[in-house]
């Protein structure tokens, strides 16, 4: 059997490395356009701006391990995939020569590319995207200097992270988003408000509900015109307007969603049984099948494909698009669906209690807190999503518990009494995950009794745990 892997970034290499764990004999060929064997991740841009690493390229996870019977062809651009003939045609960047590879199984891992917004001037020199190594170089170049002004455009987790990192490196940052609140696809109101407060408290200017109409060159700066008639001059603009799957090579050859993402089953197999699609190119068919390209999901999808091609009986768990990011020492996490997404998929009977509670025992000195929301179906009690913001890094683990609760289809009652750990310096004995479940239990008891439901709760008004 010969396996061809198109794309040697994290998902592709994850598939190859998993496959090689259980199969050392079959031939594997990896086709990758970049020349380096350690793939780039866009999180490196933020870490480099924050001064955590000296350059964005230092951050990576998977790499080609040089296993036997494995060929890594770098500097190769795949031009055509003929699914009927099971052949891949590619061009070498060095001399433009065409190479041809036949396959028995194809693993498609070409990832995603930055979406270009439709305003005039999105292709100007001082308008950069936030995706690859060259973007990292450009952003670093533009951010250097005294009193630089940047406009960050976007609605996903990359944009507030970038805004915070630029502000950290001394740039005056303005953040523009079309929505009336930040990150509407990821968070509901309680966390959105906290996110906005964190940014504005740190001098990031927010332009919410505004659209960029055009960008013009103005000497060595750019003038950005907004739809409310105002305009402002910036040194550069960074766009993180979302990602789109790179699936043109398989157009018309496998089933795809309207956004071009290849539809795969829980073993990463596409509608063509010899083609597996993983990472940002694919979307797993199921209840939580929104297209949210994330590296954590890509690595798992890659491993599942690798083991499945090797003949192991493995299946991916629902990808809940669990994300986490930090800005100005505050951490934001999300798993599962938002209220709006849940109403679209499950029905109108969705409830969302919010809580603001201490994350640790305040008497020990640290004034930590968590703002959390739970999204559940009040008819069945099943939990569909959760969101958290906190200044306690250890509290992050709560999101993993909540992700597991969503994945397993736990009800609020089960969540309220789920077994969790307690360590006096890290968390509280009754975990935030349990507390969210308990709020659901109380809300439903009140609903059943015809009483008003309290959707916003503030805990910790005593001397031991309170916000004293």
């Amino acid at each position: 059997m010969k396996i061809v892997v198109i794309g040697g970034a994290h998902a592709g290499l994850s598939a190859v490395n998993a496959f090689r764990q259980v199969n050392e004999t079959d031939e594997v060929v990896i086709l990758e356009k970049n020349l380096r064997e350690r793939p780039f991740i866009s999180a490196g841009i933020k870490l480099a701006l924050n001064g955590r690493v000296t350059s964005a390229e230092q951050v990576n996870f998977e790499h080609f391990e040089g296993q036997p019977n494995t060929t890594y062809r770098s500097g190769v651009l795949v031009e055509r995939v003929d699914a009927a003939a099971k052949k891949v045609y590619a061009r070498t960047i060095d001399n433009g020569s065409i190479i041809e590879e036949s396959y028995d199984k194809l693993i498609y891992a070409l990832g995603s590319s930055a979406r270009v917004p439709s305003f005039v001037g999105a292709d100007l020199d001082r308008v950069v995207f936030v995706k690859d190594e060259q973007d990292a170089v450009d952003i670093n170049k533009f951010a250097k200097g005294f009193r630089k002004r940047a406009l960050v455009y976007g609605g996903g987790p990359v944009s507030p992270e970038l805004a915070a990192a630029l502000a950290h490196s001394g740039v005056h940052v303005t953040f523009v988003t079309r929505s009336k609140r930040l990150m509407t696809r990821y968070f509901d109101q309680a966390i959105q408000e906290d996110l906005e407060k964190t940014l504005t408290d740190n001098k990031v200017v927010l332009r919410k509900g505004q659209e960029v109409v055009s960008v013009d060159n103005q000497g060595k700066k750019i003038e950005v015109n907004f739809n409310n008639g105002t305009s402002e001059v910036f040194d550069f603009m960074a766009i993180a307007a979302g990602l789109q799957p790179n699936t043109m090579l398989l157009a018309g050859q496998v089933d795809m969603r309207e956004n071009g993402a290849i539809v795969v089953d829980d073993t990463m197999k596409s509608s063509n049984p010899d083609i597996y699609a993983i990472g940002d190119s694919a979307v797993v068919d199921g209840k939580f099948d929104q297209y949210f390209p994330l590296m954590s999901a890509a690595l798992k999808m890659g491993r599942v494909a690798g083991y499945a091609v090797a003949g192991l009986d493995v299946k991916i768990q629902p990808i809940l698009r669990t994300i986490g990011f930090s800005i100005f020492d505050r951490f934001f996490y999300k798993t599962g669906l938002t209220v709006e997404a849940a109403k679209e998929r499950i029905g109108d009977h969705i409830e969302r209690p919010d809580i603001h509670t201490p994350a640790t025992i305040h008497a020990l000195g640290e004034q930590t807190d968590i703002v959390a929301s739970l999204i559940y179906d009040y008819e069945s009690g099943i939990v569909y999503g959760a969101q958290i913001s906190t200044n306690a890094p250890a509290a992050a683990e709560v999101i993993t518990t909540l992700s597991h609760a969503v994945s397993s289809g736990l009800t609020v009652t089960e969540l309220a009494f789920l077994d969790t750990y307690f360590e006096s310096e890290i968390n509280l004995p009754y975990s935030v995950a349990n507390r969210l479940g308990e709020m659901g239990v109380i809300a439903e008891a009140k609903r059943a009794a015809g009483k008003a439901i309290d959707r916003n709760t503030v805990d910790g008004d005593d001397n031991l745990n309170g916000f004293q």
Partner: protein
Amino acid sequence: MDGNNEKLVLLEHLRQLNDTLTRLSARRRRLRAERRVRLGQLKNTVTFILSFVLTALAAVLAFFGLPFLPIDKIIAYVVGTAVAFFTTLYLLIYYSILNRDRFSRQKWVKKRLQPVNTKISRMDTEIRSLLSASFLDAIPLDARLIDKQLLAEAHEMVVAEPEISWVEIERRLDTQLMLQRTRRQSLFASEWFRLFGASFPEKRA
């Protein structure tokens, strides 16, 4: 996939192709600008060094050595310095009037510009590779219409009228294009012509 979804997916692929083309083309332009700046810097550096050497040679010729050297060595000294002076002067004039294109073809300049030239040629190859996508072989739209705004309108047409044919979409987009005040060629059409030397879908180069 049903026919309607197929149309939407194809339009989405065209939109994505347009996006990628926009980014690659913008990056190539940025790299070319960087190349121009580096070329200018190299030219400035070489003329500065030559001017400095010329000044030094003039100073040597005028002030140093003459009063101290014996008469039998003075001729060789003056001739040598003068030759060096005029050679440097010639090089200075040569580099000052040399146009950027010829300057960039010099071996030592090429060597210094190699990293950025490699990046530019990589962009060219990426664009070529992008325009070689197999789904473009049977694309039902004209290259002029592969433009972000027009594709968005085509998307709306398909959503509103799922049974609409490609011929009808093309006809309506043509009308839209005629109504637009600017008649700028689409990026896709211009890149295609640049690369293949013929109008879409022909390839001559």
